[in-house]
């Protein structure tokens, strides 16, 4: 059984790869930097004795990332889980981006997860496996910042619902995690209203829940209350929020 981690070279994806390797999952790691992937694969292989394959893929420019992933897997390889920890934000994502920049954000945050899920779905179903999507609390309600990023992450909620509606719980587990602030390079140096969660801690929770049923979760759990309050907030008040 192999677990596929997309966006594995840094942040939450790297922490997930390490946590999965520590639990003896063989891995296919996908990210853009070939050297970063090679380093991570070597490290996990040496520490945990698992088989780690890599695929360097620039998701911002790859037309069919799903096909590339399938090409990297042997026909006989069974996939027990697909973890889509991919995500990128950009300064200026407050209605100041040009079309090319918007295209890159959509390609990484939405097109890649959609294409990869579509390509790997038959093999995941065959193994009665799991799809783990990583959204964001930024998608709870649209704001003046992270406009494109949040729109893509909101679309993942729709993908999560589609997958769940289309598959019986016994055929495919579908999990959507919506993290708040993670202590990764996305938040490095930022003044945050809440403490950032270590990606290792988030990864432990995700991997621990991998064999549980389908569901939608906030990371950490306290964000569920925040999201609920944010959704309840009258529009007139919400509009005035600056953060």
């Amino acid at each position, binding site marked *: 059984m192999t677990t596929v981690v997309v966006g594995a070279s840094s942040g939450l994806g790297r922490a997930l790869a390490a946590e999965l390797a520590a639990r003896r999952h063989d891995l296919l790691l996908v990210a853009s930097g070939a050297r970063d992937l090679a380093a991570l694969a070597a490290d996990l292989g040496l520490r945990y004795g698992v088989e780690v394959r890599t695929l360097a893929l620039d998701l911002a420019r790859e037309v069919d990332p799903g096909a590339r992933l399938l090409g990297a897997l042997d026909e006989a390889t069974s996939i027990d889980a697909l973890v889509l920890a991919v995500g990128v934000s950009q300064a200026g994502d407050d209605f100041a981006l040009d079309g090319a920049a918007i295209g890159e954000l959509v390609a990484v945050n939405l097109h890649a997860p959609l294409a990869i899920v579509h390509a790997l779905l038959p093999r995941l179903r065959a193994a009665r496996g799991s799809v783990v999507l990583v959204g964001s609390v930024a998608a709870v309600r649209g704001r003046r910042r992270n406009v494109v990023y949040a729109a893509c992450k909101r679309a993942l909620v729709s993908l999560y619902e589609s997958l769940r509606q289309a598959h019986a719980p016994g055929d495919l587990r579908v999990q959507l995690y919506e993290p708040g602030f993670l202590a990764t*390079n996305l938040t490095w140096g930022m003044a945050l209203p809440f403490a950032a969660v270590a990606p290792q801690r988030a990864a432990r929770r995700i991997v621990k829940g991998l064999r549980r049923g389908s569901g939608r979760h906030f990371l950490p759990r306290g964000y569920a209350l925040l999201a609920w309050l944010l959704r309840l907030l009258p529009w007139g008040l919400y509009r005035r929020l600056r953060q």
Partner: protein
Amino acid sequence: MRGFALAEMALRSFDRQFGARCRVQRPDRYRLLDALRPDVRRIARGGGVSYVGASFGAGVISQDLGAFDRLLAFDGERGLLEVEAGATIGAVQRFALSHGWYLPVTPGHPRATIGGCIAADVHGKNPARDGTFRRQVEAFELHSPSCGKLVASANAHADLFAASFAGFGLTGLIVCARLRLARPPASLILRRVPVRDLAEAADVLLEAANARLLYGWHDGRAAAFGRGVIQIGLAGDASQGRSRRARASRDLPGQLRPWPLCAWHRSTIAAANTWLGARWRRPGQAPIDLAEALFPLNRARGYFAAFGPGGMDEAQWLIPHARFDAFAEALREEVARRRPRITLMASKLFAGPATDLAFDGHGIALAIQLAAPREAAQAGFLEALAELAIGHGGRPNLVKDSSLTAATVRRAMPAFEAARARLATHNPGGLYGSELSRRLAL
């Protein structure tokens, strides 16, 4: 660009003598290692456990290599391990020991990184036998705006390779290194030899020069100056038993929260020395776990935290054999006269070449830790100690002692200017800098 973001952070040296608000980049991908503008002053930062502010400085961007902590390749037949520079020595030792190897030259703090160990050319538990860290490094990859990306070794870019040991990170960003491991003994027996004074300690150290571990602990109080014990780690066979210690100590944190006030006063120092004396100053031997013996600081959390917000200073001088007894006697008199608050003295034997700015040479090194080094009486003792040491041909450890000035170092190291000039050729425009390099005018 992702990862190019800079966080402003308050950084402090391990001895708490220097602090600054600094900008910190934390690259998490290889391409981001070279993302800073080529004219931006910078310095690599590993575990941040340097005693003297070697990984930060005012107006300098610290490049935190915490994400570059991976094991890259391991040859279990030949004992070769390739690791990224941000890997901690504690993690590397755990991996090596679990595969039947170890690094003989290991600093006391497990959070020191491989890059930091190279930059400081640290010594281990018996430098007379094992040399300094450079002896176990085959090659490393270095990045800098002036020389690009290169692999340096004794055969390629040899001058840069040599200058980077005790080069304090000023020759460029060390990215990864290939290390030569050694076979650990099947078991380790720690023999204790009590000594009356430093002169007797020197004799015992010389007699045990080939031991796996060799260091002395000494009382620094005037009334019992130099009294202590030499710890001699001897290789044993598998039948000679295991340590009774059931659980491995946790790694000492990189940043210790100091107690609100300094707890090291004459009375507490006396109590601690009396307790240590009763526990250790008895002849005998017992098995000890090698992993525990390599990182004695793991069991010294309270000791360091007790220095309080004012921190401590560790003066470390290497005195030639021929002058050591005279130095020890003069130091005893100085301590009797000034009665400084010395919390700990440690002795080690050295037998390597005194290269450039490295802490090596032939002689006995004496490390002296003091509480509240900014108090006038304590600072006065440190000045007197430096004068005494220089008068007896002593060589200072630049990466331990925050009280050293450029003028003192120039007097103590005859080759200082030549070493400084050599470093400068690999650091054009002073692009790499730190609090340490500012203070010592490197």
